[in-house]
C-alpha cells in the first residue's frame, strides 16, 4: 500500500518537481534581473498566485472530470463569457436594480444556471446523437460565442457594483474570494472523484466505455451530469472573476479551453480518459500560472515568453515520460 502510494507520487511527480524548480529559479534569477526589491517566493505573492490561477483553474477542474470521463469540452471559454454576461446584465434589469445589493446573489444564481444549461445542452447532444464530444463542443465553442455577441453586439457588458467588487476582494488569511472558491472546488471535486460512486464510474466509463455499459452503468445520463458540472464550473469561474472586474468583453475566455486542457494533461490526466487526478490538475494550473508570473517577474519580453512557455510545456512532458519509464526491459512499441 505504502509502496503503491509512493509509486503514484513519483508517477505524478513531474509537475510538482517542475513547480519547485520554477520557484527556486525565479527566486534566484529574480534577484539578478528583477527590478523590484520584493522576493518572488513571498507569501503574499504566492497567495496572489492562487487567486490569479482561479479563472482557468476552476475550469480546469471541471475539464479534468470530463476528460477522465473520456470526453472533452472546448466550449468552456464561451460558456464562461456568456455566464459572465448574464450575471452582469441581469443586474441592470429593473426588478434587480430595485433590489439593490440583494440582487447580487441572485445574479450569481442566474450565471450558474446559465452555465449549467449550456453544459446540459452539450451533454444531451453528446448522449442522444452519439456525435463525439470534441465536435459537439467545438461547434458549441462557436455557437455559444455567437450567443455572447448576440447579447450585446460587439460591446462589452458592464455593471460595476462596488459591493460586489469588495466581496470579490475580501480575504480570509490573505486568500481572496476567487482563491477560496478555487480551493473549495478542488476539494469538493477531489472528494467527488475519489470517494463517490459517480466519480468512480466516471473513471470506469473513460477507461472502458463498453465495460461500463456491460456493467449496467447508465453511461448517457452520467456523461450529461459531467457536462452540466463543467458548465456550472465555467460559470462559477465567471462569477468569481467578473464579480471583481465588472465587465465582459465578448471575446473573453477565448483560448481558455486550450489552457485548461494543457493544465489537465500536464497534471497527468490521460487524453483518452480513464486516468487523471484533481490534485494533478491543481499542479498543472499552478505550474502554468507560475511560469507566466515568473517570466513577468524577471522581465522577459513577449517573444521570449511565448518561446519559453512552449518549450517548457514540452520539457515537462519529456520529464514526465522519463519518470514513468519502465527501464531497459521495456517492450519497444
Amino acid at each position, binding site marked *: 500500500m505504502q509502496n503503491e502510494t509512493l509509486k503514484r507520487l513519483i508517477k505524478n511527480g513531474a509537475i510538482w518537481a517542475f513547480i519547485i524548480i520554477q520557484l527556486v529559479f525565479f527566486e534566484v534569477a529574480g534577484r539578478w534581473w528583477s527590478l523590484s526589491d520584493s522576493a518572488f517566493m513571498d507569501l503574499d505573492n504566492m497567495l496572489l498566485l492562487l487567486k490569479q490561477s482561479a479563472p482557468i483553474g476552476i475550469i480546469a477542474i471541471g475539464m479534468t472530470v470530463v476528460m477522465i470521463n473520456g470526453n472533452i469540452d472546448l466550449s468552456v471559454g464561451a460558456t464562461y463569457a456568456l455566464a459572465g454576461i448574464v450575471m452582469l446584465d441581469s443586474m441592470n434589469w429593473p426588478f434587480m436594480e430595485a433590489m439593490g445589493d440583494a440582487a447580487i446573489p441572485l445574479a450569481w444564481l442566474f450565471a450558474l444556471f446559465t452555465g449549467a444549461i449550456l453544459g446540459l445542452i452539450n451533454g444531451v447532444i453528446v448522449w442522444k*446523437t452519439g*456525435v463525439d464530444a470534441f465536435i459537439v463542443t*467545438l461547434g458549441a465553442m462557436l455557437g455559444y460565442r455567437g450567443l455572447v455577441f448576440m447579447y450585446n453586439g460587439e460591446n462589452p457588458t458592464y455593471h460595476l457594483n462596488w459591493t460586489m467588487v469588495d466581496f470579490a476582494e475580501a480575504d480570509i488569511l490573505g486568500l481572496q474570494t476567487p482563491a477560496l472558491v478555487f480551493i473549495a472546488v478542488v476539494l469538493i471535486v477531489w472528494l467527488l472523484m475519489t470517494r463517490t460512486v459517480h466519480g468512480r464510474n466516471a473513471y470506469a466509463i473513460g477507461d472502458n466505455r463498453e465495460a461500463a*455499459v456491460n456493467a449496467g452503468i447508465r*453511461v448517457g445520463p452520467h456523461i450529461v451530469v459531467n457536462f452540466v458540472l463543467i458548465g456550472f464550473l465555467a460559470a462559477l469561474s465567471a462569477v468569481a472573476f467578473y464579480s471583481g472586474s465588472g465587465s465582459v468583453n465578448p471575446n473573453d475566455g477565448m483560448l481558455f479551453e486550450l489552457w485548461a486542457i494543457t493544465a489537465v494533461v500536464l497534471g497527468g490526466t490521460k*487524453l483518452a480518459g480513464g486516468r487523471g487526478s484533481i490534485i494533478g490538475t491543481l499542479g498543472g494550473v499552478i505550474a502554468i500560472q507560475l511560469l507566466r508570473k515568473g517570466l513577468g517577474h524577471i522581465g522577459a519580453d513577449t517573444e521570449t515568453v*511565448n518561446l519559453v*512557455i*512552449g518549450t517548457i510545456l514540452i520539457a515537462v*512532458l519529456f520529464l514526465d515520460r522519463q519518470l514513468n519509464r519502465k527501464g531497459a526491459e521495456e517492450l519497444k512499441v
Partner: protein
Amino acid sequence: MADQAMKSLGSVLARQGILVAFILFMVSFTLWNPRFIDVDNVFGVIRSSAILGIMALGVTFVVIGGNLDLSVGSMLSFSAIVVLDLHENPAFGPALAIPAMFAMTLCLGAINGFLIGYLRLNSLIVTLGMLSAIHGLTLTYSGGQNMDIANQNETWFDVFGRGEALGIPIPVLIFLLLAAFLGIVLAKTPFGRKVYAVGGNGTAATFSGIPRARVVFMTYLISAFCVATAGLIQASRTMGAQNTVGQGMELEVLAAVILGGASLLGGSGTIFKTVIGVLILGFIQNGLLLAGLEFYVQFVVTWIIIILAVWLDIATKRGKLWSPIA
C-alpha cells in the same frame, strides 16, 4: 440498368452522410440567394478556403496517424512572415525565398515529428507548446513588425495568391492538385496504408514491422509541407502579413478534418472527406455572409450545421438516428 445505378448511388450516399449534408446545404442556400451558386462566388469561396483546405490536407494525415497538430496556425504565420521577409531581401528574391521558407517550415515539422514520433510525447501538448514557441520565434524573426512587399508591381510573387490559369484561380488549382496527389498517396500507396495502421493500432503496427516512429514523423512533415504551401499562398494573396495571420486557424482546420469524418482516435478518414469538410465550412461562412447575417448569427448557424452534418453522417452509418448509448 437505371434502377441499378440509382440503387448503388443510394448505397453510396448512405455511406456518405457528410456528402448528403453538403448537397442539402448547398441547395437550400442557393434557394435563399441564387448568387450563392454564381461561378465567381463558388471559385471565390474555394479560393478563400484554399488556405485552410491545404492545411487541412496535411492535418488529415496527422489525425489519421492518431495525433493532433495544433501548431499549424502559428506555423502558417511563420512561413508567411519568413517568405515575405526573404522576398524583400535582395540576396534572396522570390525564387530563393520560396525554397528557403519551405526548408525552414519543414524543420519545424521535423521538430514536431521528432518529439511525437520518436520521443512519443503527447501530440496535443507538444503541438500546443509549438504553437506558442513558433509564435515567439516568428515575433523574434520579424521583430514583431508586419511584413509587406514594397514594390508590388515588380514581382511575380503575387501569382500564387492572385493568379489564374485556365480561368481557375491558382490557389484553387494548387488546392485541388495537392488534394488529388495526397488523396492518392493516402489511399493507394503503402505509406498511406501504414498511416492508417499506425493510427488504428500503433502497437499492432509495430508488431507488423511498420516503423511507427518514422510514419508519425512523416505525417508531421507532410503537415508542415502543406502549411508552407498555404503560407506561400497566404503571403502572396495579401502581399504582406501580420505575425498573427494564422492565429486561431488550428481549431478551424481541425474542425474541417473532423467534420469530414476523420476520427480523432486515428485510423479513419480520407482526403476526399476532408475536402468536403473544408468546403462545407467555407460555404457556410460565405453563404451566411451573403445572406447578410451578422457575424455572430453566422457563428450560431455554423454550430448547428456542424452538429447536424456530423450527426447525419454517423446516423446513416449506424442506421439509427439516436445513439444507442443507454
